[in-house]
């Protein structure tokens, strides 16, 4: 993907997602703060802001010290990252166990809360730990990191972070959410990533 193709893809996709996914709003509000996408094996397109207000910058995956570059270095199948602020997720102050099947399938066995501590330099390491085997993590600075194989995938991960957070918080009024078995949640995640996705491809 060239720089211009990347810009156009990002802008159109985000605009389309925001325009056509109003139904998701019942899951809570998600604000995209910034994002990035992989252009090729060496470069990523870093985007600050959204839609027509977005500013773009090409950065090297290998050399850049940013969180974005570090995630792409660590997670080869990932092609998009969104950093978001979300109404309910920003109120979560603990790791959420697997409480919903769709959470486990898409996001991973738990939704980790990372209480960012120490020097800013160490934040990247802490966030990467939160994303290990997962597609999203919640940070103590009221932001969430959501990743995916495409912008659409990262966006749905963000929606699911909000749904899961809302379910976790609201279920406290009903005696608390009951977690499902963590091994089963992990297996469901793997099944969803590999078998279900392949079957979905076949069904196209």
């Amino acid at each position, binding site marked *: 993907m060239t720089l211009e193709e990347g810009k156009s893809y990002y802008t159109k996709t985000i605009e389309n997602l925001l325009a*056509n996914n*109003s*139904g*998701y*709003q*019942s*899951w809570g509000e998600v604000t995209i703060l910034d994002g990035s996408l992989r252009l090729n094996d060496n470069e990523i397109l870093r985007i600050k802001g959204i839609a027509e207000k977005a500013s773009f910058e090409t950065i090297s995956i290998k050399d850049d010290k940013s969180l974005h570059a570090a995630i792409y270095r660590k997670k080869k199948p990932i092609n998009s990252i969104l950093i978001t602020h979300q109404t309910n997720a920003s109120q979560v102050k603990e790791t959420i166990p*697997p*409480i*919903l*099947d*769709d959470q486990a399938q*898409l996001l991973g066995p738990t939704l980790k809360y990372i209480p960012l501590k120490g020097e800013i330099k160490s934040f990247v390491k802490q966030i990467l730990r939160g994303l290990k085997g997962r597609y999203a993590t919640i940070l103590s600075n009221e932001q969430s990191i959501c990743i995916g194989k495409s912008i659409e995938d990262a966006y*749905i991960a963000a*929606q*699911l972070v909000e*749904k899961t957070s*809302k*379910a*976790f918080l*609201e*279920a406290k*009024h*009903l*005696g*608390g*959410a*009951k977690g*499902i078995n963590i091994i*089963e949640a992990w297996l*469901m995640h793997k099944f969803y990533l590999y078998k*279900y*996705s392949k*079957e*979905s*491809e*076949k*069904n*196209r």
Partner: protein
Amino acid sequence: MTLEEAKIAVCNAGKQLLKEGLVARTWGNVSVKLNDTQMVITPSGRQYTELTPKEMVVVNFNTYEFEGNLKPSSELKLHCEVYKTRPTIQCVIHTHQMYASIVAAAQKDVHVLDPEHQKILGSKVVKAAPYALPNTKKITVETAKAMEGSYAALMANHGAVCCGDSLEDVFLKCTTLELACQAFIESKKKVA
């Protein structure tokens, strides 16, 4: 309803599910009973926005055999079970709607507080089926059992299922269930 009409109706219902925020991505599914042995259901793993009526799948709900190359929704056995055990039911919708998911995550039955909601849902309590892995025999049997005597049930840690006479009727039940779950949660907040 003819086969063509049923395929169009199911396809449109899938898109409406997405629009109303009752599902996301490829989750959830819709079916309509065609005759005494067949139903039309949404296909497996397809985005609702991309669906066309010809891609809807005809399934024999007694044998699970399906027509064509596209695989039916992975939750088809739940739909089959409802049609087999409740001959008057014409449509089934499975959703991942927000407030039903909250109660389902808490593995609680919903006490339906509003008499109007009770009338629409067909019961004073919407039961939550115990947790079972998706697409298993257990989730099928337990969910159908939880729905006995009602038009709706929760699936623990998963979502909800509603059934009824027509797609319009089942959509009304899905949205009513959402309101009933929201009211149930709010009532617990007041108690606290």
